[in-house]
């Protein structure tokens, strides 16, 4: 009896041990022994790559180092940033202007670096605004948003800001089709099929980066999701994935998931250019903002444009072609040779890979299976190179290592799968923690990938870090992909929600002529104060302009009297320093906007409307020197109608004697 009991206990113990050993390995096992060494960048040493990561719903662009995962800077782009005065200083407000007026927030999903001959060139990085459709250009000499262009006729600019191989164009596509701005938008929502249209935008990029909306192509109403340009042999073409070809306008999760196949739309933009030359474009009247930053006046300008050239995809037959692609395709990625186009049907159990050559011969021999809203639909098999079988669940995005392999993220099965582009065989798979969205290999969507690291950007972190209440950070995970097997070497939380990212070799950026400070002699700001002696306070009606300077460690003037209730005070602060890394800040009690962070040689303006009579301290917010705490002053606010005259000084307003 006792013996039997022991045997039973033993059997249960053994059984449960076997069961638990069948459980998949935990995350701890996924890290190899030399991971720390591979991700370690010693203090004072530089990273190998700059990583420009979209901030998602933060609206900003974050800059990390690889492989250390250290955060260097968050560049404000589409959302206001009181810390940097972005959208709060008078100079930056026009950058966030749109046809809808000032928009303080947006959702930056994708980044794309400028290219020359299909290789990253380190000049600019572009970002998209998903909510109020826009594209931004960030200058990589100043790490500052230099330009923002709005896109008319669009809702949800998602398939953006992808570029052609010489940065000829940066594109945008409407995720939410809407009636064009040039038609009546006041229609019943359930007239989607009749009244809603898709528009994809081609924005020309000039030599200095200046953006100009060259043309749009109008398509049937669908949801454009992602895109990538052809390169090499397929240069001249652009590929856009689209879903909701069912044209549903409600409960899309069901109604837009009905068809077995949606499309990848191939756009022959060289052909579109020919049609424009031939005068086939229609000028449509719209309204969109084009905002530019001037490095000399340190001021943004917003211009409202009123016209766009639109080409009709149904009318001009040989610009657009639809390639059937299984189950609501998301990612649309082109390999470094330009031959293979990978569509990732997010509900599909396979990954179709299309061949550019086969697509071309299918077009030439008219192997069509009908049309979609007037756009020819190529037969699936006629354009197909092959399918990756059983890659995982929920394929989303693909990047390339330049060594013949592709890497695809699987959202549902939470893994990255490495496969061979030619044979379509799965080579390796690694888990991610958890639910990976985008991934990035430096140069991984260009002609020249640097296949050393791959970074997965995850949507869910759950138990990965110390808990911080209901809201948790999202994360990035770096894998070493230099060998046959992908190896996790580092895992770090990110700001906002990381979507797509780009990376470039550090030397390409740090040797591109990085600006260290603005030359005070070149400062053409209309309210610049180029020396302490020029500082002054000028009243113009109820507007008071303070021409102020900052230098270690005082403001001039630092005693101001004669401000009255009802006044609008403009502090135009010029940082007189001419050395690297000596910014000054400026803040005043009760200001209902933000602070100013003024770089050496720059002039920035804070508008301040005092609401109560009294004494208002102001001070430098950026610890600038040993006497930073002394860098402060007072502004006296008197009642409306008071006869206290305007007076201002620094160092001379000595204690009153009785």
């Amino acid at each position, binding site marked *: 009896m006792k013996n039997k009991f022991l045997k039973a206990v033993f059997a249960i113990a053994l059984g449960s041990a076997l069961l638990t050993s069948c459980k998949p390995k935990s995350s701890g096992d996924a890290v190899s022994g030399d991971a720390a060494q591979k991700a370690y960048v010693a203090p004072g040493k530089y990273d190998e790559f700059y990583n420009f990561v979209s901030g998602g719903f933060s609206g900003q662009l974050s800059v990390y180092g690889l492989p250390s995962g250290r955060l260097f800077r968050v560049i404000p782009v589409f959302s206001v940033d009181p810390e940097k005065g972005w959208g709060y200083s008078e100079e930056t407000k026009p950058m966030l202007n749109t046809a809808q007026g000032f928009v303080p927030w947006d959702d930056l999903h994708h980044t794309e670096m400028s290219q020359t001959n299909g290789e990253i060139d380190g000049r600019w990085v572009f970002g998209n605004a998903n909510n109020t459709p826009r594209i931004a250009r960030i200058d990589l000499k100043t790490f500052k948003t230099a330009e923002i262009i709005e896109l008319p006729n669009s809702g949800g600019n998602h398939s953006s800001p992808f570029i052609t191989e010489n940065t000829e164009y940066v594109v945008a596509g409407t995720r939410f089709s809407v009636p064009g701005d040039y038609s009546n938008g006041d229609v019943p929502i359930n007239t989607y099929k009749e009244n809603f249209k898709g528009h994809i935008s081609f924005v020309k990029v000039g030599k200095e980066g200046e953006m100009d909306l060259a043309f749009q192509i109008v398509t049937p109403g669908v949801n454009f999701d992602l895109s990538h340009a052809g390169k090499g042999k397929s240069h001249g073409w652009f590929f856009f994935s689209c879903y909701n070809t069912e044209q549903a306008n409600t409960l899309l999760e069901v109604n837009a998931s009905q068809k077995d196949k949606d499309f990848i739309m191939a756009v022959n933009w060289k052909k579109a250019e020919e049609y424009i030359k031939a005068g086939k474009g229609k000028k449509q009247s719209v309204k969109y903002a084009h905002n530019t930053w001037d490095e000399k006046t340190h001021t943004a300008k917003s211009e409202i444009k009123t016209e766009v050239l639109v080409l009709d995809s149904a009318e001009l037959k040989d610009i657009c072609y639809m390639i059937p692609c299984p189950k609501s395709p998301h990612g649309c990625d082109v390999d470094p040779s330009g031959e293979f186009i990978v569509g990732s049907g997010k509900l599909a159990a396979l990954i179709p890979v299309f061949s550019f050559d086969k697509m071309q011969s299918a077009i030439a021999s008219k192997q069509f299976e009908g049309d979609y809203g007037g756009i020819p639909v190529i037969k699936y098999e006629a354009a197909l190179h092959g399918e990756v079988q059983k890659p995982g669940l929920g394929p989303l995005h693909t990047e390339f290592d330049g060594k013949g392999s592709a890497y695809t993220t699987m959202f549902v099965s939470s893994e990255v799968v490495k496969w061979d582009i030619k044979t379509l065989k799965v080579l390796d798979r690694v888990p991610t923690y958890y639910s990976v969205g985008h991934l990035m290999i430096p140069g991984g969507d260009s002609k020249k990938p640097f296949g050393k690291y791959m970074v997965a950007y995850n949507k869910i972190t759950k138990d990965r870090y110390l808990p911080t209440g209901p809201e948790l950070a999202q994360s990035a995970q770096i894998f070493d992909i230099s060998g046959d097997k992908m190896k996790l070497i580092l895992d770090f939380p990110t700001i906002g929600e990381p979507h797509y990212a780009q990376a470039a070799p550090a030397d390409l950026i740090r040797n591109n002529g990085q600006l260290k400070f603005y030359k005070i002699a070149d400062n053409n700001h209309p309210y610049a104060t180029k020396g302490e002696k020029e500082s002054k306070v000028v009243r113009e009606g109820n507007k008071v302009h303070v021409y102020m300077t900052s230098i270690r460690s005082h403001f001039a003037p630092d005693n101001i009297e004669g401000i009255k209730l009802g006044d609008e005070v403009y502090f135009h602060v010029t940082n007189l320093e001419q050395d690297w890394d000596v910014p000054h800040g400026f803040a005043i009690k009760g200001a209902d906007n933000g602070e100013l962070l003024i770089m050496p040689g720059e002039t920035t303006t804070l508008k301040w409307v005092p609401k109560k009579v009294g004494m208002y301290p102001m001070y430098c917010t950026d610890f600038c020197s040993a*006497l930073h705490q*002394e860098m402060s002053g007072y502004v006296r606010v008197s009642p409306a109608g008071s006869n206290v005259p305007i007076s201002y000084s620094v160092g001379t307003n000595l204690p009153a004697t009785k």
Partner: protein
Amino acid sequence: MTSTKISLIAKVLLFIIAALFVGSIFVPMWQIELNAPQYPEGLVLKLHADKIGGDVEIINGLNHYIGMATLHTENFIEFKILPYVFAAFGLVSLLLIFIAKRKAVLVFFLSYVVFVALAGIDFYRWNYEYGHNLDPNAAIRVPGMAYQPPLIGYKQLLNFGAYSIPDTGGWMLAAAGLLLFAIVFKEYNLFKKKN
């Protein structure tokens, strides 16, 4: 057998010396390098024959903490005179080729030595002046502390390490002096033991 006329090689050397004197006008003569934890890239004052160069604006900005007067080229008469002095030295060197007397070279050499000594004293005097004549209202006052940079070599001044050494022009002037000395040496046969 001794000759009071100088040799051909001495004339060639004199030509080189003339070139060195004139050349030194166009390059920095002396430099004071300053290093601090906050300035890993270093700051440098470059003293040319005719001006103060380098990071003079930044250094002037920092000097106000300790109450040191700011540096301005126009406050030093030296920068007006020195280019002419070096040009004159160059001219004299050329003339000496035609005079070709070893005694003349000796006299020039000795006057140059005197000039260098006077210049050194002058440089020390200015260093002393700027290092000691401090604004009594300065934010940072360290009792007994002076901020005189070294005449030559290294010295720690609060958080700054100051390293004072010749620059290109200085080395050219030194070379000119050495070459003059070599001519004197050779022409007076000081190499050979007298019998």
